């Protein structure tokens, strides 16, 4: 069930648990699915030089990022037997403890969703031009780099 149209993956601010719960509920009508797998990226309150990260402010090269998300999606559907998949990423400020990335894959069988989810999350981290400004409690900042 691939969709050729490029979707907008971005959501302003944190991804709420209500939004995630609703997404799960919407799949109850898709009864060919036997397994879901979900990745939630959460903003960590890292302590760097005695200063604590209180939030990350996300920006992106949005057109390229959405195109990359689309490529990842197409590749995932080619590689894995998925019924559906959804990716949402935050833009703007997300506080420590809040969710900034939500990846949701579904398949008739469980083994596929474990492999697919890891593939997708690693690709998102490596290939998508999203930038994160780590804001400390004293309002100074540094730029996050994915490892």
């Amino acid at each position, binding site marked *: 069930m691939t969709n050729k149209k490029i979707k907008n993956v971005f959501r302003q601010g944190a991804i709420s648990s209500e939004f995630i719960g609703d997404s799960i509920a919407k799949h109850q009508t898709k009864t060919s699915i036997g397994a879901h797998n979900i990745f939630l990226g959460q903003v960590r309150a890292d302590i760097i030089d005695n200063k604590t990260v209180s939030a*990350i402010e996300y920006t992106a090269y949005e057109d390229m990022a959405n195109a990359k998300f689309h490529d990842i999606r197409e590749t995932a559907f080619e590689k894995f037997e998925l019924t559906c998949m959804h990716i949402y990423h935050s833009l703007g400020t997300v506080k420590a403890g809040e969710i900034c990335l939500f990846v949701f894959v579904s398949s008739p069988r469980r083994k596929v969703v474990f492999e697919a989810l890891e593939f997708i999350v690693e690709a998102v981290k490596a290939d998508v031009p999203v930038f*994160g400004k780590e804001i400390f409690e004293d309002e100074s900042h540094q730029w996050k*780099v*994915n490892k």
Partner: protein
Amino acid sequence: MLITIKYFGQIAEVTQKEEESLEFSGVLISELLEHIYSKYNALKNEGFQIAQNQELVSLETKLSGKEIALLPPFAGG
């Protein structure tokens, strides 16, 4: 040719702008980069990749006139 250049994250902090358009007569990405360095010397201390028309390119790639973007390290997720 008229080239639009976008700056992101810590790169935009150095350039103090997120986008600019400039008339440029060079042929390669490397030549454009030299021109950008001449405007913003502090960029030499920054690590970044370059995209042309939303695809990552090398320094030897020819300028097409499409949008250029200077992309600092990715931090999604």
